[in-house]
């Protein structure tokens, strides 16, 4: 068995473990719902207390301290530990280690950085998505996003393995540059942050809807939401994560221009890939502005973060494969 085959084996194992992690995180979400039911029996006035929490968070007087401190949950129903949550986290760490091994082995097998075609981008990009998630977990308790992260990574890896797989090949002259190492790596890291920001913004929207339903004393279906932070807290977290992504993306754009200048003799030429990188950058600039514009905070700005991440996925999955341009490196 050569190194590349070992890398593939390691990747398949990682996917298997991610799948179990996904199951564990899903069980945890189910547990959260029953915990909420139990809490509601004891305290019929949850809706009332929830409303006040949400209002408090909006005013900036919550105990939202440094992100490096664990975010204080302003959830309506406090909920911290379940065995399945711990199992989910342990499994995702294990899967990540296998995933890392797969990526490193691929790099050694190819004798270069393992991010030079779609299969490798997907493998490395998802590795960074999980890495960002795990790092943020040490600073804020976002374990409730476990299903989202493992689910997203499983889908992307599945597509990569089935549709994007290519054999190990040497770098064509056009990709032989330090800028490949820098530009693609930073873009993938940025994607990791955007992915997490997307998840937070999505939960924020759902949570916001839930809070409005609660204030109207309406029936709520996704009961586990009561164990998650309030929409306002989620919004602040999403913003923190997204601006880090935005800075990395700005750097990606600049590094890409420098590379384009060295390889093609012009730093900007509106090549399709350049266009989409620009579009993503502008959408996230819009998101940051929306957060500072009266009437656009909250749900509206969250939608922009979601559109931004959709554009990131489109740029990776559709532009690379189907659009014609100078960046023809999908290896397909």
């Amino acid at each position: 068995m050569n190194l590349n085959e070992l890398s593939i084996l390691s990747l398949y194992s990682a996917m298997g473990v991610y799948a179990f992690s996904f199951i564990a995180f899903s069980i945890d979400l189910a547990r959260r719902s029953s915990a909420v039911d139990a809490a509601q029996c004891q305290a019929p006035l949850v809706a009332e207390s929830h409303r006040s929490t949400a209002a408090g968070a909006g005013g900036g007087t919550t105990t939202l301290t440094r992100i490096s401190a664990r975010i204080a949950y302003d959830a309506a129903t406090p909920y911290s530990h379940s065995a399945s949550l711990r199992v989910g986290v342990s499994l995702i760490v294990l899967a990540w280690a296998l995933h890392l091994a797969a990526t490193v082995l691929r790099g050694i097998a190819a004798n270069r950085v393992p991010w030079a075609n779609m299969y490798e981008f997907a493998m490395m990009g998802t590795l960074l998505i999980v890495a960002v998630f795990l790092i943020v977990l040490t600073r804020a308790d976002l374990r409730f996003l476990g299903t989202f992260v493992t689910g997203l990574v499983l889908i992307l890896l599945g597509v990569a393995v089935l549709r994007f797989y290519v054999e190990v090949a040497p770098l064509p002259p056009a990709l032989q540059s330090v800028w490949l190492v820098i530009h693609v790596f930073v873009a993938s890291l940025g994607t990791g942050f955007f992915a997490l920001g997307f998840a937070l913004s999505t939960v924020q929207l759902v949570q916001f809807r839930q809070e409005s339903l609660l204030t109207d004393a309406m029936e709520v279906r996704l009961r586990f939401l009561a164990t998650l932070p309030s929409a306002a807290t989620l919004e602040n977290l999403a913003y923190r994560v997204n601006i880090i992504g935005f800075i990395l993306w700005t750097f990606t754009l600049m590094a890409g221009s420098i590379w384009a200048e060295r390889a093609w003799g012009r730093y900007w030429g509106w090549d399709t890939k350049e266009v989409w990188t620009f579009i993503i950058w502008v959408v996230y600039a819009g998101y940051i502005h929306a957060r500072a514009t009266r009437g656009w905070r909250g749900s509206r700005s969250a939608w922009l973060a979601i559109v931004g991440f959709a554009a990131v996925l489109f740029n990776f999955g559709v532009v690379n494969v189907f659009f014609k341009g100078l960046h023809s490196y999908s290896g397909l």
Partner: protein
Amino acid sequence: MNDRVGPTVSRPYDHHDSRVAASGDRITEPPLDFIGWLRWFWRQLTSMRTALLLLLLLAMAAVPGSLVPQRTADPNGVTQYFADNPDLASALDKVQAFDVYSSVWFSAIYLLLFVSLIGCVIPRTRHHLRALRAKPPKTPARLGRLAGFTTRDAPAGTDAAAAIDSARSLLRFGGYRVALFESGSEVSISAERGFLRESGNLLFHLALIGILIVGGFGSGFGFSGQRVLVEGQTFVNTLLAYDSFKPGRFFDEERLDPYTLALDSFDVEYETLNLKAYGQPVDYTAGVTVAVQGKTARTDEVKVNAPLRVAGTDVFLLGNGYAPTITVRDPKGNIAFTDSVPFLPQDANLTSLGVVKVPDGLAQQLGLTGFFYPTQAKAQSGAYFSSFPDLEYPMLTLNVYAGGLGLDAGVPASVYALNTDKMTQLTGGDTGTKSLELKPGQTQELPNGLGTVTFENADSGATDGDFSGSVLRFASFDVNNDPAQGWVLLFSVLALLGLLTSLFVPRRRIWVKAIRRENGSVCLEYAGLARGDDPALEAAVFTLAKRHNAVLAPTPPSTQTTEPI
């Protein structure tokens, strides 16, 4: 909150952090007189909402250019598009869909955005410069509703003024600008930090304006030219020597420094060990000799991703292929044509297509079109193809046309295309005569006794069966000059630095108030206010309170001795 404390940052009126104007509704309706209307319009244009709208419009307007080929990035794609969908193409062309990024509508959006940006940034800069010199604002009367509000009883015997004094040193040490206020029984310190945040934000937006100006106008002074060189050929950097040349709007021919560039060799390395990537190029190296006027010639290299910087221009290696050397003689053996002709690669294994035009020296004008296969192989259908990009078994096939080349019509003709309208095909196709097939060093008769054609072997001393040097290669170079790009880089770096400071430097105010009670004891109050996103504010207030108390009550507490006289 802001109403009480008063903002020190000038922001567009609809910034979420700015004061809601008491007359908030009046300004949303345009007044009737002209000046008033202009002012209203300007206010709308420089509002956050307009900026946001324009940003989103810009993102949307950029999309079509990625769906439809663009003339600047992909001119052949545009030609193809016109050929495939003539009606749709001409309709799209009317709305400038093939020139999206220089179209009227795209330009309108980004110009409006930048007018908005300038209109927003200038007052903010002015305001910011003034704020840099201003004192922190007066302490609010009640701190109770502000962030991180904390109260502590000062250790017995603490003097209010001294307590505030030590708070002041703590805050100063933490990088805050401070001001002291006193009213009745209260002494307080008002502290502010994080002006860098606003500075960074302004730097970022100003740098964006810089990038647009320098990038948009600066590049107009440069040029970009293309030139194909066959091994052994030399090029002089003058306007005429270029195959194609795009000057910037303000380009001045005087700026061309007539250096010479000779392509001595072009080496390609192909993957042969990894069977899964067999034949994939792994390295291109153009060995060149450069001679700048007044200096001795030097040898150098141009590689993909490693341009040659010479005399203010950058020389890039963009393409390469084979240039078979072809000689055409008349029936008496006089040379009518001899040259190395670049053949354009058609696939990864360098099946290449080329054209030879022989206007003089023969009984008729002659045109040859042909394929060159570096390693010729035969498909089951009988068609030839190339199975490897290097010269293993090279073969040239030629079709012969005789008649008028149409060169004197005054219409510039591409050297890579043969217009056969006024020509008769003599070999290949339906003529019944086989196409000419030549290996390096071979000569064949032209039909109708027109003469002969020879495929010269460039490596005359090679042993039999070794074709590795039999055909010359060509390299196509881009020669560019963009005097503005260093400036664009500078502004981009400034933008990034501005972004980093503006997003990560917290901007906040902190107040510490000492209230003397009737009984002589002192109550301390701490509170903060975020100016922008500041998740660490409350922690900062708590830490300050803790530190301050530690200073006031040194361990072990000995109230008697520390009492100031």
